[in-house]
């Protein structure tokens, strides 16, 4: 048996973990030998819902001070949360 990591990135509508998922990415270190997630719809309704399904939060965004002149700029999706779960699979 060995331990493999699954990583789930969720981009949320707002900075709170219980706000809706607007984008997502799933990276499967189990190469399909672990539990899967749906690809065509958000795997969870919110970041908090992912916690309830056993995902562990490993990165949360920090608030950024707004610099003068860029108060209204938009860029990459701002509320990126990263989760992991470790799956035991047969060698």
């Amino acid at each position, binding site marked *: 048996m060995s331990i493999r990591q699954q990583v789930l990135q969720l981009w949320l509508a707002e900075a709170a973990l219980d706000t809706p998922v607007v984008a997502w990415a799933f990276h499967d270190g189990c190469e399909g030998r672990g539990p899967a997630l749906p690809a065509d719809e958000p795997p969870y309704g919110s970041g908090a819902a992912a916690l309830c399904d056993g995902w562990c939060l490993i990165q949360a965004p920090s608030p950024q001070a707004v610099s003068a002149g860029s108060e209204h700029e*938009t860029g990459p999706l701002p509320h990126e949360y990263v989760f992991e779960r470790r799956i035991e699979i047969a060698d």
Partner: protein
Amino acid sequence: MPASDHCLTTLEVARFVAEGYLRFDALVPAGLNERVIEELSRLAQVKLPQAIGVEPKAEVPGRPQTLTPLSRCYPPPSALGEVLRLPSIQGIIASLVGPDPLYDHDFVHVLPERGGYVQHLHVDAIIDSRDPTFDIQLFYFPREVEEGGGGTRFIPGSHLRRVRAEQVARYQHILGEEHFAGPAGTLLVFHHGLWHAGQPNPSDRTRWMYKVRLNPRVPQVRLWNTGDLDEVHNDPSDHTFATMRFDSVGNVLRKMQPWQHGHEARLELVQRVRLWRYLTGDEQYDVDYYLTRLEQRAALLGKEAGG
């Protein structure tokens, strides 16, 4: 198509500002599409090796150089030139980047049948300046693309966010994303900043797409059919939290995508308003009062509003 001169209407241009693209199904006639595919297959033999730094073994005479006015690109006899000179397409181009824009570059995106090639989401720019000027990119599909048949994936409303080209590769899925499928001869017109990606083609038909980027040579101010502009161009008092119009440009600009929520959506709206100011030359234009409020206060100090 809208007016007899084939130029866009004000509300169509407003939708372009809000969503970053326009779609015209089966715009190019069937017979012409087939001739274009023959021409694209010859062009691909030059473009594809050149793109990876390999000198092509063949040449297509008269291939346009960057900075060539579009009217001099692909002169007759050329099926591709015929497409680019269709009055309907000329009207769309003129409405967004003005008459006879500059050819930037083009490419033949051919996805063989049962091909697994997939691109990450990206933007066709290393990074953009903060000014509101823009190029357009025509995505022309001369052959029908079925659902799941390699149609371009793109994110409506993503065009005004300042990102580096590959920075958005991290998003495998975004709510509201589109995967093109449609009839032969369909044209998508993208703002150059729209996030997009090529998709696998598991179907049993080759997917053809011709893309050309065009640069404006004139300020992009009121270039479309502005006969309806006075009627739909709202004043700065059009405000969701006070009194609002439901038939105005402002209400088109307010329409957000499923991934655009809350305060982030308000920042999106500010970006759209800035672009609409540029396109109309109306520096007092606003929707929902976000910029006007700041400008009114800044005026008390004799300053321009920041941000």
